[in-house]
């Protein structure tokens, strides 16, 4: 077993290093490392076919419980989390359909018009919208459209778009923490531990809501002078009308209806018993059916690289899990916390936040889920409390640096492409303190409410 453990850790470390170095595309890295885990760890070192089957986890897809869970059946956290992958793929198809119809651009322009293109109200509205959209849609898409519209408006209204983009990025990450489907770590935590959309909304959602009020006030205090500085003579006639964003009225209405249904299905999935995998599959099929001859085009736009990245990643983490490495980590956390739940929460939230600030929070969350499960089982603490702690730590911690989360990379990239570079200094100066504030407040709320 020792050889298997060493190999599993070695593969995991090499995978992480290769992802950081970014010479090879990340999906190839995780898939190759996943394959190595199957061959070397499970095959050569453990001679265990059950471990391979459990990690590939394909059988689970063909059980009724995978699609329909009357009550809240806990899904297996071991190996490839197919529910996460199917759900994300489904959302990708839906979001592509919405983007094609012009939904996001229309929404941004509509709201900008509603606040009469005044900089400060625009700043606050866009932050709140970023958070709300990110509750249901991946933060990359939210920021891609929001940042592009922000830059466009900034050029027309003569203000600096950087403060607005940075606050939108932060709020997208914060909004993502509020729901089960907002941020990939939450989908992983939720599907692995059998939690529902409502569970997240009433727990991490509440914390994120309080966090949002705080950060809106914080960013307003930090940036209001810079934003108020604009406002020279503005030619309002140059600003495009929101309706111009809609490429096709029929598609637009259909995509709004599908989005509404997806939200309704997600919010009620604990009551209806439909699993997120089912919801993902249904919205993908409906979107494709509604898009007719463009269905193939939408399918081609799905980010398969990210889906393959997830599959490989789950295999590598499966290696750590099957060899008992994650149990050792859980044992270590249990030991240093002395069984005290407050100490455990503090350790998990800050380690998650710091790690997520520098490395991708998705592999981190995938690794930590079995750890908290083990910790709850051995130390007798409430697993859900640890789940909320892990979610808040990984989701919010990712905001701290330009490389912490995908939304940060996309936001800074859109700004840079339009001639507004955002280096590490500029980014961290305002966003890192906001991250620390929200992580600290989240920890306090968890202490007060659950410990």
């Amino acid at each position, binding site marked *: 077993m020792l050889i298997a453990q060493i190999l599993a850790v070695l593969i995991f470390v090499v995978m992480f290093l290769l992802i*950081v*170095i*970014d*010479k090879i595309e990340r999906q190839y890295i995780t898939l190759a490392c996943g394959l190595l885990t199957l061959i070397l760890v499970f095959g050569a070192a453990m001679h265990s076919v059950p471990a391979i089957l459990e990690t590939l986890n394909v059988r689970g897809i063909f059980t009724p419980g995978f699609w329909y869970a009357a009550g809240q059946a806990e899904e297996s956290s071991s190996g490839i989390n197919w529910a996460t992958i199917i759900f994300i793929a489904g959302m990708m198809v839906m979001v592509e359909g919405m983007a094609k119809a012009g939904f996001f651009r229309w929404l941004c322009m509509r709201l900008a018009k509603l606040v009469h293109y005044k900089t400060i109200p625009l700043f606050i509205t866009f932050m709140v919208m970023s958070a709300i959209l990110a509750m249901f849609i991946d933060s*990359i898409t939210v920021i891609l459209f929001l940042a592009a519209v922000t830059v466009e408006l900034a*050029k027309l209204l003569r203000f600096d778009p950087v403060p607005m983009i940075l606050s939108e990025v932060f709020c997208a990450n914060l909004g993502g923490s509020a729901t089960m489907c907002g941020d990939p770590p939450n989908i992983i935590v939720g599907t692995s531990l059998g939690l529902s959309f409502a569970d997240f909304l009433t727990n991490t959602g509440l914390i994120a809501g309080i966090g949002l009020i705080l950060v809106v006030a914080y960013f307003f205090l930090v940036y209001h002078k810079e934003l108020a500085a604009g406002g020279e003579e503005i030619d309002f006639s140059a600003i495009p009308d929101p309706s111009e964003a809609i490429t096709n009225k029929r598609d637009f209405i259909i995509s709004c209806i599908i989005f509404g249904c997806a939200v309704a299905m997600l919010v009620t999935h604990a009551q209806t018993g439909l699993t997120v995998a089912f919801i993902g599959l249904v919205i993908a099929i409906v979107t494709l059916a509604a898009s007719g001859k463009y269905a193939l085009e939408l399918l081609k736009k799905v*980010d398969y*690289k990210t889906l393959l990245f997830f599959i490989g990643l789950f295999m590598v983490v499966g290696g750590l899990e099957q060899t008992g490495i994650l149990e050792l980590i859980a044992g270590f956390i249990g030991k240093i916390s002395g069984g005290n739940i407050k100490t455990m929460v503090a350790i998990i939230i800050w380690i998650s936040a710091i790690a997520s600030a520098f490395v*991708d929070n998705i592999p981190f969350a995938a690794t930590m889920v079995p750890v908290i499960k083990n910790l709850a089982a051995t130390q007798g603490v409430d697993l859900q409390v640890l789940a909320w702690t892990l979610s808040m730590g990984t989701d919010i911690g990712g905001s701290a640096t*330009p*490389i912490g989360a*995908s939304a*940060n*990379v*996309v936001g*800074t*990239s*859109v700004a*840079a*492409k*339009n*001639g*507004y*570079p*955002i*280096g*590490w200094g500029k980014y961290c100066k305002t966003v890192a303190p906001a991250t620390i504030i929200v992580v600290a407040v989240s920890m306090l709320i968890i202490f007060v409410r659950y410990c």
Partner: protein
Amino acid sequence: MDMGKQLIISVSREYGSQGHDIAKQLAEQLGLTFYDRNILDKIAEEMDVDVEHLEKYDEKPVNVLFSRRVGEHTNSMEEHIAQMQFSYLKKKAESGESFVVVGRCAETVLRGAEGLVSVFVLGDRSKKCLHIQEKFQLTEQDALAKMNRHDKARKQYHNRHSNFRWGDSRGYDICINSSRLGIEKTVQVLKSYIDLAR
């Protein structure tokens, strides 16, 4: 020389080899537009932004530890500035304009463009060092350190964006040691070469 045909001269250079001055003189003598850092001025003007925001990332290598890629997006400002300059150069080349460009990995970016002549200017270590000492009033040790630092950055920048190593003679049409002939004669040799090569 047939001035009707498009001519693009890319000049890559070792730090202290006076490649920049050589490229400038070539441009003046051939009556061509000269591009170096000034590309950023033009980009900033087109984008209606302040050039100071862009300058500090010019021809800088990407720091892999501090950058991350998500699909086609990256947070690396060095990468963005490089790509902006590459697109600018490609646009100019496609428009049929003749010009001389210093650095910016132009020999790779514009490979395949009709009328491209790629040059690499190198120099003897001692001569380059002496030139840097005189230009910046530095001690020999400081000049050497400066030279090594700049060459390392240029090498990393080039190798990130190109499929051949910086300074590898196989990647350029002509490599020339400016320490042998000095600026003026090097320019003469290059002019003759360009004339014959077209």
